């Protein structure tokens, strides 16, 4: 196999694993996929470029992400009684031309179907990945950006990452 095909395969495997960790609510292992300065970002507006001077749905740096996960483990998180159950389907994975030394950029499409508080909700979005190669076939996430198709929509609350 060519190096490019090799890379595409390992990136896809990484993204599938990331989705499965979230489906299985293995949030701590999911967090460990992020680099020490990694960020999980869900903009509040299509084409948003600035997470610091404009509001976002999620803008989780490692501190914030850790707090979110601690809360998800709390027995009296009222928005999650019963616990959210979700299945994530990842498609349309593309590895972009080399982004820079030691960096891999990729895109994917995400469909997440969630059952929470008696309601089933389908979430759809495009995901942009900025990955740092780690051990062979493994990566750390520098940035995972999820652009929901309904970012500007009227939302009823979200408890788990997409």
């Amino acid at each position, binding site marked *: 196999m060519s190096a490019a095909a090799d890379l595409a395969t390992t990136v896809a495997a990484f993204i599938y694993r990331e989705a499965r960790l979230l489906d299985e609510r293995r949030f701590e292992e999911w967090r460990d996929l992020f680099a020490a300065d990694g960020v999980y970002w869900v903009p509040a507006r299509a084409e948003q470029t600035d997470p610091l001077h404009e509001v976002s749905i999620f*803008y989780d740096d490692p501190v914030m992400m850790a707090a*979110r996960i601690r809360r998800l483990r709390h027995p009296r998180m009222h928005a999650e009684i019963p616990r959210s159950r979700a299945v994530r389907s990842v498609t349309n994975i593309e590895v972009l031309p080399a982004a820079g030394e030691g960096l891999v950029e990729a895109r994917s499409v995400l469909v997440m179907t969630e059952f929470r508080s008696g309601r089933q909700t389908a979430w759809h979005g495009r995901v942009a990945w900025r990955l740092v190669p780690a051990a062979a076939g493994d990566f750390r996430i520098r940035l995972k950006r999820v652009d929901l198709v309904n970012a500007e929509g009227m939302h009823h609350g979200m408890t788990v990452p997409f």
Partner: protein
Amino acid sequence: MERLDISELVRGDRVHSRVYTDPAIFAWEQERLFARVWLYLCHDSQLRAAGDFVRATLAGLPVLAVRQQDGSIKALINRCAHRGAEVCQHESGRALRFRCPYHGWTYAADGRLVGVPLRAGYGPGFDLGELSLKSVPRLESYRGFVFASLAAEGPGLLDYLGEMASAIDDIVDRAPDGEVEAAGGLHRHAFHGNWKLQMENLQDYAHPAFAHESSNAAARPYERARTELDEDDIMAANKGADMAWMEKAGVAAYPGGHSYIGALPLEQPMPAEAEAAYRRALVARHGAARTEEILAVQRHVAIVYPTLAFQSALQQIKVIVPVRVDYTEVYVYCFRLKGAPAEYHRAAVTFVNAANSPASLILTDDLAIYDRAQRAMTQAPGWLRFGCGLGRDVPDNRGGMQGPGYSELAMRNQFATWRSYLERPAPRAA
């Protein structure tokens, strides 16, 4: 319609669940309450040039706030005089004219009908002058915050705001340039519950220890190592706000249904340089003594009854839009203090995300609880109790009443005001 006796539903310390669940009462609220009061429309900074517009909803009516050639603002009802279509579908923008997408009737930015295709078909008596977009009769603004009233007559805006004009002063005075602007975007969320659940929650210091227990537990020990506010700080502040502290924070309630609760022990950790620059800029404008007064105002949330809330020290407002008796939308706007260092705007954005993003670690529990309260009250009607702190309220020196922070004084004040509006029949609209 079944006869409604409001005095039977709202008593001193008790309210019947029907006021949250009965569609007939919601219809009364639209015409007796929302159509009479001053409702927040928009901020001046959203309409910079003639033709700039934003959409809003006032007492259920779809409205376009439009900047006029003479600099004034009009609120036009977004319904075509021809066949009832929405004339404008955009959330905001700039327009010379509004052309209805259905049959092309065209209105000027002041609402006058200026173009009708196939006009000859309407015969000789057809008068464009009678077919303007209807406009909201009264608009007034205070320091950049624009309000509208569907009532042709009534108290002026400043009379209406009364003591709670201070919520606007509290945000504007903090800007070294003497102005704020809508900047940093907005959050939108909704819940399957009555609007009053949200207005009560905004003045409720008895709920965080329980409703937000998981958020408080998730907060790391409060520390000042970081230089910018994050969600952890906010939760740690919640956690620090025990009963003794809340008693001290206090609640103050004023005529008209308005009120505020004292601040949480929440600090905005700012880089020392930014804080010093900010203070210098405020002192340059206001002098040292006035600057200290401005920064000493300590409020967590102030509400302008019935549907607006200010978190002035954190540069955000919350606009509540009652849609149906059991469905409410909320818009949260972030503001920028003009003349303040960029760190202050970043802290405001962080805070608005933390407290009011649809994925907030705090808001999501409130939304879940509103939904369940609505369901339970619908399934099991009965009395609700608002007696906490009753008898401990004392007059303050500004024409209001004050009580300990955990008191349900603000809710009692909301319902006393609610009752006074709902007991007065509305004049039938033409």
